[in-house]
């Protein structure tokens, strides 16, 4: 019957199209994850002690999953065109394994994004910023990163300058509260790097100090990365699910 032939053709066409899209998405995922792995955002010293390794793992898995998706999509196209049961069975099983890995990667990236609450950064900053006897080089890096962050984004602390007032900190151990209610980097600085009005900064007169917190500046790039890996991967998996269902249906109808 012509109708069922057409149906078969349409199904094959759809499956080939689906696999082409999967292949392209696989390449895109690989490229994106290579970008994230090789080009970590400048705030990595801040995140080093947090669960950044999780995010790195998610990105590495993403690279290999992307390549696997590309290879498997080619296998799928060949299998659909040849209508070979063996090829398609291998395709489905390997795709399921890839699906499982990508699922793990997505969930890890999404969980990682959740774990970076302001409190995590606040605690780290209070404990490590301007630590007087830095245990290792990473504390110096940490202080430098925070200073650059505060200078570039005109922000102070994680939630605001009151962070330095509400909590004791390593900074407070070496800098008296009367002279340094908050670090000098929180002041509005002139071209030479000196506060425009030191008394105004110490009093907290608006215009002479940075009153907003840096959490937005930190969470922005981190969220972009996490969204890139987690949600893009989720979209790919949804599409893959449809293609796999179609392939299973096609497979069950192939004559042997």
């Amino acid at each position, binding site marked *: *019957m*012509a109708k*069922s*032939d057409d149906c*078969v053709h349409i199904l*094959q066409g759809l499956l080939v199209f689906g696999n082409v899209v999967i292949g392209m998405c696989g390449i895109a995922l690989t490229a994106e994850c290579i970008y994230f792995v090789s080009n970590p955002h400048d705030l990595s010293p801040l995140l080093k002690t947090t669960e950044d390794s999780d995010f790195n793992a998610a990105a590495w898995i993403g690279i290999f999953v992307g390549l696997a998706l590309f290879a498997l999509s080619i296998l799928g196209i060949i299998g659909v*065109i*040849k*209508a070979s*049961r063996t090829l398609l*069975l291998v395709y*489905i*099983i390997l795709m*399921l394994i890839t*699906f*499982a890995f990508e*699922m793990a990667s997505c*969930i890890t990236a*999404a*969980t990682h*994004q*959740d*774990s970076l*609450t302001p*409190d*995590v950064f606040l*605690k780290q900053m*209070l404990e490590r910023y301007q630590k007087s006897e830095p245990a290792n080089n990473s504390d110096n890096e940490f202080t430098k990163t925070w200073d650059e962050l505060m200078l570039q984004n005109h922000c102070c602390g994680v939630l605001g300058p*009151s962070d330095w*007032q*509400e*909590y*004791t*900190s390593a900074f*407070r151990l070496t800098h*008296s*509260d*009367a002279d340094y*209610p908050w670090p000098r980097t929180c002041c509005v600085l002139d071209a030479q790097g000196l506060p425009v009005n030191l*008394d105004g900064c*110490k*009093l*907290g*007169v*608006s215009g002479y*100090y940075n*009153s907003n917190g840096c959490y937005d500046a930190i969470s922005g790039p981190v969220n972009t990365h996490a969204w890139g890996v987690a*949600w893009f991967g*989720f979209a790919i*998996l*949804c599409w893959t*699910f449809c293609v*796999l*269902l179609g392939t*299973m249906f096609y497979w*069950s*109808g*192939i*004559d*042997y």
Partner: protein
Amino acid sequence: RPRHPGGRTMLLPLLLLLLPAAHGTVQLPYRPDLTEKPKLEGLRTASTFVLDQPRCVFKDYGNADIWLVVALDQAISNFSNTAGPGTPETAFQRFPDPVRAYMTLNATLANYPCPKPDGEITVLRVGSETSCAEDVSRPTCNGPLPGPGPYRVKFLALEGSVPVAETAWSVPIMLRTAKSPSSIPTVGSGHSAGMIAITTILSILFAVLLAGLVAMLCFWSSDSCSGSSTFSKPESVSVRRYNTHHVYDQPAARL
């Protein structure tokens, strides 16, 4: 002599009236207060606080030295206006024990011109001098306060060593107490809706796919075991159709 007894009784109240004036201290209606305008982030820190300058308060006392008295809340009744500034009894370095109130921030009326020009920030930061905090040779140091308080302040005008005017005591001022950073909770605060959605949906999809795979495999093994009618010898490279009758009718439709 009716006037004599009247005069005597008049003299007594007059003397009584003159007595406080002789001991001098005029009670001004002003109450020192924390600065409300402009809004200051550092209004109260752990060791400093910011007061408004007493502008237009000591107008009649151009010759007096205006001192700020900072006292512990419970010690204000013990403070005597005759205590001299710069003495060990009012030295900052011995505050809060044994000295319970100290005097600092010496100024004259010239420092507090009246009226206050608009747009200028006229404040007194109590606790800003850290260099003399330990220096006993500077008993009138405006050093950082040693604890969270509460403290009360007033302004006292002295001519020479004679108190001539004073303001009311301020309301009790509490400073900030800093908590330890280990009190910040960093254990996972729960999962966002997005993460739960991803996990649930992906798990369901994966389960469906696994079920499909299992169904396929059962289907296949039942096929090969029972030798159903769809089974036929595989050909090497050709597109198979579900209905082979029309293969030769529609050659052009082959892939």
